[in-house]
C-alpha cells in the first residue's frame, strides 16, 4: 500500500515538474512565434522571421529564444535587432523624422482633398445662386 502510494506520489511529482517545464517552454514558444511575425527576415525580405527557412532567420530565432530565456522583454529584443539591422527589421516602422511622411502623408492628402472639395462645392453653389438670381 505504502509502496503504491509512494509510486503514485512519485508519478504525480514527476508529471508536475514535467508539465511545468513544458509550460514555461511553450510560453517562450508562443512569444517567439508572436514576436517573429512582427519581424522581417532580411534574406527573403517580404517574409517574416516566423515563416522564413533562411539560415539567417533560423539563427535569429535561436538568438531571440536565447534572449527570451535570459528574461529579456520583447521591446528589449526588438531594440537588440534594430541596433544591428536598423528599423527595416521591424514591419511596423517607428515614427521619426524620416518616416513622418509615411505615417502622416495619407492624412495630409485627406485634408488637402477635403479642402479642395469644400472650395469646389462653394464655387458651384455661388455659380448656381448667381444663375438663379439672374433668372
Amino acid at each position: 500500500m505504502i509502496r503504491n502510494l509512494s509510486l503514485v506520489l512519485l508519478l504525480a511529482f514527476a508529471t508536475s515538474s514535467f508539465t511545468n517545464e513544458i509550460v514555461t517552454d511553450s510560453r517562450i514558444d508562443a512569444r517567439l512565434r508572436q514576436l517573429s511575425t512582427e519581424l522581417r527576415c532580411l534574406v527573403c525580405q517580404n517574409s517574416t522571421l516566423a515563416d522564413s527557412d533562411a539560415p539567417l532567420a533560423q539563427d535569429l530565432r535561436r538568438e531571440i529564444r536565447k534572449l527570451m530565456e535570459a528574461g529579456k522583454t520583447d521591446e528589449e529584443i526588438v531594440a537588440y535587432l534594430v541596433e544591428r539591422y536598423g528599423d527595416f527589421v521591424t514591419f511596423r516602422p517607428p515614427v521619426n523624422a524620416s518616416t513622418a511622411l509615411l505615417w502622416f502623408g495619407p492624412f495630409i492628402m485627406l485634408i488637402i482633398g477635403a479642402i479642395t472639395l469644400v472650395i469646389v462645392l462653394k464655387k458651384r453653389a455661388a455659380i448656381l445662386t448667381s444663375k438663379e438670381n439672374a433668372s
Partner: protein
Amino acid sequence: MKLKLILPLLLFVVLVGFLGKGLFLNPREVPSPLIGKPAPTFEAPVLGDSSKTFYTEEMKGKVWLLNMWASWCVACREEHPLLVEMRKHDIPLYGLAYKDVETNALAVLESMGDPYITTANDADGTIGIDYGVYGVPETYVIDKKGIIRYKQIGPITPEALRDTILPLLKELAV
C-alpha cells in the same frame, strides 16, 4: 487660371520623378545602423589554427577592413580575385569566415589565394549577427578608434574600391 490647368501636370511630373528614382534604388540593400558607431568587439579562433585567437581589441589604432565571406557563397568567389589584388597593394584586409566548415574555407584560400592577414572563424554566425550581416560578402572599413566608417554590402566592385574605399582609407590613414 493657367496655373490651374498645368497643376495636375506638375503633380504628375513630381510623381513620375519619385517613381523614376525608385527604379534606381536597390530595395534589397538595408542601410546599416552601425555606420559611425563602434564596431562590435569579438574574439574568435583563427581559421586554420584554432589554438590562436583573433581579438578586435588588438586592432585599436589601426585602420582595417573586415571582409565577411564563406566558401559556400558564390558572390564571394567572384569578389575573391579583387581581394587578392588588394592584398598585393598592402590593404589591411582581415577575413571572417561566416558559418563555414573550416576545411572548406581553407580549401578556397588554398586554391584561390589567401588575401587576408588573418581570418577569424565565426562557425555559428553569432559575430555576423552582431555586425548585422544578412548576406555575405559584406565588408566593413574600421578606423583607428574602432568606429565603422563604411559598409560594402555585396561584393566589392572595382568602382566601389576606386571611388569610395581607397579615398576613405587614404583619409583615415592620416
